[in-house]
């Protein structure tokens, strides 16, 4: 059963990832991206990493909505097919071949088999994760708070219309 589900989700992920690249309609691409994320979330559920699955789902929802917004704002309907020059084609082929060789080599070396780590230790369980976040990792958590604060202030400061900026753009 779980092997069947794995192949189902893997096909879904790979297929819709391909569609993201091949689709010429930007909205369809964004929707395919959403499907690819759903497939990935399914794969994480199969690995019993429920928290990661949840994260990917949230990511799928939030990010794809933003993508669709931007597509609508920019009002792109259908992109013209761009010609790719020979150099890029060659470089992409070589890079792809290298990556495939690398992955095959790693599998050949049998790096990935072995006993599974207990889920408790890896923080994959939501309760363990929350506990660690507010005990062991309290300091990085606080720093993250400051990170978000300055990010927010930065957005305001760069997008706010100051008198100087208005004068400059009015020229």
């Amino acid at each position, binding site marked *: 059963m779980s092997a069947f589900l794995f192949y189902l989700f893997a096909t879904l992920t790979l297929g819709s990832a391909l569609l993201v690249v091949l689709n010429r309609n930007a909205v369809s691409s964004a929707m395919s991206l959403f499907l690819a994320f759903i497939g990935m979330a399914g794969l994480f559920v199969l690995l019993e990493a429920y928290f990661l699955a949840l994260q990917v789902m949230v990511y799928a929802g939030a990010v794809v909505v933003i993508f669709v917004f931007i597509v609508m704002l920019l009002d792109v309907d259908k992109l013209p097919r761009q010609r790719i020059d020979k150099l890029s084609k060659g470089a992409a082929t070589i890079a792809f071949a290298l990556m495939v060789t690398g992955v095959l080599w790693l599998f050949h070396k049998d790096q990935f088999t072995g006993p599974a780590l207990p889920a408790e230790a890896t923080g994959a369980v939501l309760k363990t994760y929350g506990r660690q976040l507010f005990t062991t990792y309290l300091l990085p958590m606080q*720093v*993250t708070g*400051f990170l978000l604060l*300055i*990010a927010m202030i930065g957005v305001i400061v*760069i997008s706010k219309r100051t008198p*100087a900026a208005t004068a400059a753009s009015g020229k």
Partner: protein
Amino acid sequence: MTPEIKALHDIAVSNYWPALAPEIGLGVVALALLALELLLPKRQLATVIPRVAILGFVAALAWTLRDWSAVWLGHELFGGLVRQTTDSQIMRVFFLVASLLVSFIATIVLPKQKAPRVEFFHVLLVATGALMLLAQSNHFVLLFVALETVTVAFYILVSYFRASPLSLEAGLKYLVMGSLSSALLLFGIVLLYGIAGNPLLAGHTAQSMNFAALGEFLRHNPDEPLALVGAALVLSGIAFKIGAVPFQIWVPDVYQGAPTPVTAFLAVSSKAAGFALLLILVRGPFLPLAQVTLPLLSIFAALSLLFGNLAALPQRNVKRLMGLSGVSHAGFLLVGVVASIARTDAVSWAPAAVYFYLFTYLLGAMAVFGVMAHVAGDADADQDFRHYAGLARKSPLLGAVLACGIGSLAGIPPLAGFIGKLLIFVAAFHARLWILLGVAIVAVVVSIYYYFGWMRAAFYEEAPPSPERAAVVPLHLGVAASLTLVSLALATVLLGVYQGPFGQWIATR
């Protein structure tokens, strides 16, 4: 006590917050600035905000010096997240002094551009706290969170003059390149985390983000390919921050477009943070991987020295020149880092030489940026050699400070920069890095050419008869500004003649 309570108790003991009092203080002052903006009348803001920020930096500096040799030095705090050492104390002082001087430059430049101030100092305070945390991190989680805070702060600061298209362009470029470097770094960390947690390998650990545990794992498996790729990616991510070739592509444009105080902050603090991290990593957990880190960093060093100097030769814009010469300074510093891992027994003082070089760079670069802030007109990105024509005649003080700063950066004998370069060269000599030493010496000779082009403009060229800027730039110097610039120049001269306790510390390492 139940085991659960015991575990919580251990964490509470380990999370020893007083050790981070300066960083917490900076965070509190940053928040206080936002409150002050709401409470104070608008007229007073312009004078009060920079003073409060500078006071905050001075207080944090005093507190760091008070705890200079605290009992917890060398021990892991916060469950292994933080480990303070003498090295990290030096870097904390370094970042505080650098931010003090950046605030000083900001008080000159921000009024010229009519840019908001509160947010600038707020972001500067937070970034300084994060930089200080970076220098004492002992765990990849804290390292990444602190580094990302610094990077986000720089995204904001670089595009701070949003009325200037060049500043926005620089911000966008820094955003794209910074994200790329963060992605490389994160990918490397994840590979290391994954491989060090593999239960099939000797020395595997559940705490594989901790530097000590990771170092133990790498000692058992120095040839593990995934670990090597991970370490190389982490080093590449850091090479972006220090602007070493081949990751220097963003440097000239971002340095030119960023507001002058931010360029100074980028050139000095961001680069120093990269080197603090590099020294922590390559002398700590990555030491067993020296067979890979050594050639990798040597190539970075040689390329940075050659590219930085050759690309700086035709530059006339002083901000681009500082950026490209900064690439070559990164090359000199990398030679010191390479020397510190090439033969750890023979030159155990090489990291100290790197810190000394960073301090000389701080003094020299800040003196130059301080003069630049005064000479710059309305267009912050357009600062050219021709604007310096006749500077020494118009303002002998600025001319003298500029000469001290540039001379120190070029490494002219009585000044601090010379001793800094000399220490690095001696370290490279003892570590038998003949090729790097040769490249570095050639680089020094080349650098003198472009540094002195700038000096010639300031001292021997006449100001054009009707300079378009003469009216804009009255070269008005306040008392505080003169005092700061003079003390920077004096410190550059003093540190070249007398190294004092710093020299003793280097000698005893």
